[in-house]
């Protein structure tokens, strides 16, 4: 996980792998509505992603597939500075 150069942009995460390719295809296909394709179910592969992160004082890039071979607890939450 190398340090990332810090620019003024507000980088965001993106999905990588087959799902990302499927999503591109869907977006270009007007016959299929809804870009928010849910690709996760228990017993299925966790969608891989690559995203910027803050870790112990540094800005890094994380990729879920780099954690292959380990158990991962992936926690989504509504927002920093919220109360619960």
């Amino acid at each position, binding site marked *: 996980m190398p340090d990332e150069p810090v620019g003024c942009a507000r980088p965001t995460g993106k999905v990588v792998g087959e799902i990302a390719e499927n999503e591109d295809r869907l977006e270009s296909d007007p016959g299929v509505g809804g870009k928010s394709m849910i690709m996760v179910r228990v017993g299925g592969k966790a969608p891989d992603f690559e995203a910027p992160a803050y870790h112990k004082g540094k800005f890094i890039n994380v990729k879920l597939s780099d954690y292959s071979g*380990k158990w991962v607890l992936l926690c989504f939450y509504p927002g920093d500075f919220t109360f619960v």
Partner: protein
Amino acid sequence: MSAVAGRFDELQKLGVEVLSVSTDSTFVHKIWEEEELSKMTKDGIPWPMVADGAGNLGKVYGVYDEGNGVNIRGRFLIDPDGVVQAMEVMTPPVGRKIEETIRQVHAFQHVRKTKGAEACPAGWEPGKKTLKPGPDLVGKVWKKWQPE
């Protein structure tokens, strides 16, 4: 998140890595960690705090709330093969309980260790009885296991 941080050492001992994700930027993560979370935890937040500003991750994991531009509360337990073994998705006002997550880690790790030969019945905790699914168990679970 601070509740998970409090049990981070235990999760690490179980070989579990943690990633947290919200739509906040890495800059906001930094200040939240420094200004608030570090005061609610022993050593601050020890795992990468991921930025998902566009909600791209939340969308494929089914937790992105487009109307509000945020990811709702969702917890996914992913095994070493990259397979999602458990998920729990909740609306914002109620928090998760880390003890339940840790219980599930123990249970899924036990099942994995036995290569699926054993199953963990309702309320299972480490040390409690497991079941061995097979022809002999059909219709006979009551002999082996009763709800508490």
